[in-house]
């Protein structure tokens, strides 16, 4: 990287930087050469950082009022909603923030799938991302349990019971998870502890994720390796910062509509009924962002195999860099992959839809076909496609497809200095 020889201008800065090179880091982050052809799908990394920080800040403030006790959790949430200053605002931001977080992460993942960002040399970034995604699901699930409504309670019961599918030790593990013979107060308090912990684990992994990104640099819509810095790149600040900021604001408008005008639309009405171990809600569904996996779970008639299928559906992503045998990254130059990509998107949306429907009749059939196709895509189509597909010619540099040769960075800098 070019910034290793950075020297702060001031004496104090040099003194500090020799002892802790924070200024070098800051300089690296501002100057970080970024491909200049990144489109708006690339702004979701920044949006996700915003989501994580929002969740942590609102979560910390909620934790100051929430009581993790089976007898008081529901009441304490009502206390937050009614009496705590701005409590309703903070809770609605936190609850809808989880949905917005997943929305952004799905776009982020599917962007990566389209442009082949998971391929060499970016496998570690991708795997770290999958771990973050898994932790997000754990955090979201446990967070949903905390209000101790009916969906909290029965969601916790159903999900923890998944572990009972493990042969021999399954029952023991479930009892251990519960700290009792059913989901109860011990379960709630440990879920609260873990729900508090996981976001900080995610924060640490995000640092690694970005660190791993800054080694090879960003992929780009053309998917070719570029020289950095060069006429194909712009410094992160101010170019990418302002662009990410713009996209973030658009995202926040959508977010605000949910928080202020339909704060409960993504939740489930039953969760406003206090948990009751005697009565299961008529129609039990997870939050929308877990529906595709829920559909996969239900599409397999065997208890153990269903759990295995659901877990495989996520873990298969971790080995994706090696399942995709194509040397070309971007789907722009892979006409066949592009079509399969959109079929996969549709497949996942269908899985999400049937996940919300009762598991019977036609819905079950659709779920099974969609599940089969999901695995087919990763296990058969992708490996074969890499060998069979006739790809389009890939340009040599970014500037070529965009403008056919243009001003380079040096010229841009010159222009800028003239202005100032």
């Amino acid at each position, binding site marked *: 990287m070019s910034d290793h020889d950075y020297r702060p201008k001031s004496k104090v800065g040099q003194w500090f930087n020799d002892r802790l090179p924070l200024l070098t880091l800051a300089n690296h982050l501002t100057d970080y050469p970024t491909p200049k052809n990144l489109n708006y799908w690339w702004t979701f990394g920044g949006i996700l950082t915003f989501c994580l920080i929002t969740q942590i*800040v609102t979560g910390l*403030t909620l934790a100051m009022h929430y009581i993790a006790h089976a007898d008081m959790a529901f009441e304490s949430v009502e*206390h937050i909603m*009614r*009496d*705590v*200053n701005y409590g309703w605002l903070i809770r609605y931001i936190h609850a809808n923030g989880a949905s917005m977080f997943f929305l952004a992460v799905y776009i982020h993942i599917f962007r990566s799938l389209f442009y082949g960002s998971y391929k060499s040399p970016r496998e570690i970034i991708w795997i770290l991302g999958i771990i973050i995604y898994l932790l997000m699901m754990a955090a979201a699930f446990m967070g949903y349990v905390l209000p101790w409504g009916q969906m909290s309670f029965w969601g916790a019961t159903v999900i923890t019971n998944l572990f009972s599918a493990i042969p021999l030790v399954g029952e023991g593990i479930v009892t251990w998870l519960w700290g009792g013979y059913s989901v109860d107060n011990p379960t709630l308090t440990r879920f609260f502890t873990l729900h508090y912990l996981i976001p900080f684990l995610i924060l640490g992994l995000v640092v690694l994720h970005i660190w791993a990104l800054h080694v090879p640099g960003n992929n780009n819509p053309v998917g070719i390796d570029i020289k950095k810095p060069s006429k194909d790149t712009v410094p992160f600040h101010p170019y990418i910062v302002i662009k990410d900021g713009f996209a973030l604001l658009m995202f926040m408008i959508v977010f605000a509509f949910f928080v202020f005008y339909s704060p409960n639309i993504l939740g489930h009405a039953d969760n406003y009924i206090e948990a009751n171990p005697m009565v299961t809600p008529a129609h039990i569904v997870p939050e929308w962002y877990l529906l595709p996996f829920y559909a996969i779970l239900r599409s397999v008639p065997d208890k153990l195999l269903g759990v295995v299928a659901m877990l495989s559906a996520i873990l298969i992503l971790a080995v994706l860099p090696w399942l995709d045998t194509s040397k070309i990254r971007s789907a722009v130059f892979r006409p066949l992959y592009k079509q399969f990509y959109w079929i996969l998107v549709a497949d996942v949306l269908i899985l999400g839809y049937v996940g919300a429907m009762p598991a019977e009749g036609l819905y079950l059939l659709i779920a099974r076909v969609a599940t089969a196709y999901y695995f087919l895509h990763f296990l058969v189509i992708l490996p074969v496609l890499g060998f069979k597909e006739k790809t389009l010619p890939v340009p040599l540099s970014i500037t070529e497809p965009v403008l056919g040769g243009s001003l380079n960075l040096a010229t841009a800098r010159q222009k800028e200095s003239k202005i100032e």
Partner: protein
Amino acid sequence: MSEKKTKRRDFLFTATTAVGAVGAAAVVWPMIDQMNPDASVKALASTEVDVSALTPGNTLTVLWRGKPVFIRRRTQEEIDEARSVKMEDLIHPEKDEDRAKNPEWLVMLGVCTHLGCVPLNDKGDYNGWFCPCHGSHYDTSGRIRKGPAPWNMEVPKYEFVNANTIKIG
């Protein structure tokens, strides 16, 4: 580039930054305000205390808003002692007549104004209260006479609902 264009660019960036900063500040406020007393705490009602069993020379301690309140039924000597003190001898001059409208009854927050400990009854150099934490001495009117505390013990809002009942708050 002309001078004029430079100015316009600067204005745009300044305006954007300023508007952004206003928004950021507006978002910070709810996160701070949520730690202030909430609506249920603010609405916490007054406490009514039955003092019929209290004999002169004794103190009743009750809890109000999470803090102890001393209700002292003073003897005549205590009243005389409190009322004979000269103002210039006081660290925080307040007349006993203002602190105890009905001289027999002294009602005050039992919290030392130094760092919040609860002073001990019938102790200290002035026959009133003594704070064991850092040695503040209070007289029979609960006024600070010696030690690090800066003010007299606070008299809360209270009233006699009837001869036997005091309503604090």
